[in-house]
């Protein structure tokens, strides 16, 4: 007998829009960020009178997508606790049920879908922790990025008022010693270079994360046979009736 399928909603319209905005921003941030770290194409040296603004445009795009990222991150952080749809923080509290679910999903992945003893209707603990890692990396990028940026606002002045650099210093100065600690510099002499190395390294970690994320979604779709990949497009997936 063919199993009956039931449609379950997994992502709201807002969450889906956010997902694709973030995805596009990330591609843009990586392309421009790599240029800022090491300008990998040349501007025409022979044309002195041409309107060249290559690095500045790259930086402009980088900052713009960063701002979009920042706003999205704030909203996502809010949704962790106050979403009316699913409150992700509930899956992050290490209760016995959550811990069990986390390892069941992990086992499902490493046993190549031989063992599937959890409810795949809703977002599971493993998934939520996996995304939490991503969000933490994004927050780190945001703070280190702003720390690198604020030093360009020389003498604590900016076009939108002095509160802006003041606030950025207040909120991000601590990333200097923490980056130093991550890179392995003794605390008192950590410098902005540690922040920069950390910012650059985290980019690679995020790209790796994305690689695994895409793979895992496809893998789930293929092996769970519940249409997981369509969550991010139509907002829902299908679950076998007897399971749901």
């Amino acid at each position, binding site marked *: 007998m063919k199993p009956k399928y039931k449609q379950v909603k997994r992502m709201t319209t807002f969450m889906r829009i956010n997902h694709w905005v973030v995805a596009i921003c990330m591609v843009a941030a990586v392309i421009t960020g790599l240029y800022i770290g090491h300008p990998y194409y040349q501007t025409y040296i022979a044309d002195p009178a041409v309107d060249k603004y290559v690095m500045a445009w790259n930086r402009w795009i980088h900052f713009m997508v960063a701002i979009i990222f920042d706003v999205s991150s704030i909203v996502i952080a809010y949704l962790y606790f106050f979403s009316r749809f699913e409150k992700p923080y509930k899956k992050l509290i290490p209760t016995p049920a959550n811990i069990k679910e986390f390892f069941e999903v992990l086992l499902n992945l490493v046993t190549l879908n031989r063992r599937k003893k959890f409810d795949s209707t809703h977002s599971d603990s493993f998934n939520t922790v996996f995304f939490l890692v991503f969000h933490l990396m994004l927050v780190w990028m945001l703070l280190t990025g702003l720390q690198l940026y604020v030093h360009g606002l020389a003498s604590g002045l900016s076009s939108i008022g002095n509160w802006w650099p003041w606030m950025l210093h207040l909120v991000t100065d601590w990333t200097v010693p923490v980056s130093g600690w991550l890179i392995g510099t003794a605390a008192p002499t950590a410098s902005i*270079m540690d922040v920069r190395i950390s910012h650059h390294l985290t980019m690679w970690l995020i*790209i790796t994360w994305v690689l695994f994320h895409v793979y895992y979604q496809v893998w789930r779709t293929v092996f769970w046979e519940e249409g997981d990949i369509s969550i991010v497009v139509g907002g829902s997936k299908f679950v076998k009736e007897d399971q749901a």
Partner: protein
Amino acid sequence: MADRIEGVKKLFTSKSARIDTNRGDAHYETLFQACHARIEELKTQTPREDRLKIDDLLEDQGVSRRDFMKWASAVTGMLMLPSSFTPLVADAALLMNRAPVIWIELSDCAGNTEAILRSDGPKIDEILLDIISLEFNETIMSASGHQAEKQLEDAMHTFKDKYLLFVEGAIPMGIDGNYGTIGAHAETFYDHLMRISKHAAAVVAVGSCATFGGVPAAAPNPTQAVGVMDILKGKPLINIPACPANPANMVGVIIHYILTGQIPELDSLLRPKFAFGYRIHDNCERRAHFDAGEFVEEWGDEGAKNNFCLYKVGCKGPMTFNNCSIVRYNEGVNWPIGVGRGCIGCSEPDFWDKYAYERPMADANIKAPTGGVEKTVDEFGLGLLTAAGIGIGIHAAASLAAGKKEESGES
């Protein structure tokens, strides 16, 4: 005295790179009164020995009063004070011989001393550093051996709790500090520093080695060298890094001390903000080429001839805080980026390992967390990505194989 200590404490606890260039009229009015009173008080004191008359000295070197006042107004600007302070700064400069200074050398190349001595013809900064009441300096004093040690004892005794201690050079901590010893009793550099700093009013670390360990502390740091700030606790400490430290900044710190009796406002790395509150990159004459994406691709190419930005050949101006892009060296003659090579971040911690390479930062060698092999950030990242890709490939292949087996088992 108590409020002065409070003031010093407050300055020390402000741990931000943010600089405030305008604090309002009221603030400067009170500051002016305080500085004025202090200068008048200092004027009544006679210097210990009036070896050199400063006015005469300046005249001998062909510096006119007008040049001197021009210099004074530039220093006033550098110290971020309103122009009304110019006469006070000029007075403070003439009172430089009231500040007793003891200068010691540890693990270093004497480059900072050289920077003062070997300038192309002494300019006002260097002349003033000549006439500070330099009570002890191994490199340029004529006494040696026991005689020199006695002189040091004398100076420390006479100016107890009043002298400024200038330290040049890192402190080797390996084999109980025995990598570097000084004097007839083979006192280690560490003991030497601790003994002399004990009764100093404030300690000034000059040059990258004394501040952050510099070249002696570069990987693999065989002598386990450290900077003064790593070992000296409970003393006002001012860091004037750079390789060599700019004489203008040394004079700035001393004048600030004479003028206010306090050490200048410091950033989180204990560097005076008036000198290290600026990024090289933001005051660089090649900045327009940076924004345009016009880079020197290799030494001597067409871009180099056109003074393009040096970012791709390793300029670390965007991560380096120093005022050499503004005050330059040798009385404003030129500075490293002006002569066509990138900034190597000499005023930043660990500059030899983290800044001084002729590649952009993305190609920097970083140490693996375990120590050991050096890889660039991008090599590391690509390696990570490859590993993840291989992992995913294996998992995918295994999943497919397992899936097939299951199906064939079912049928």
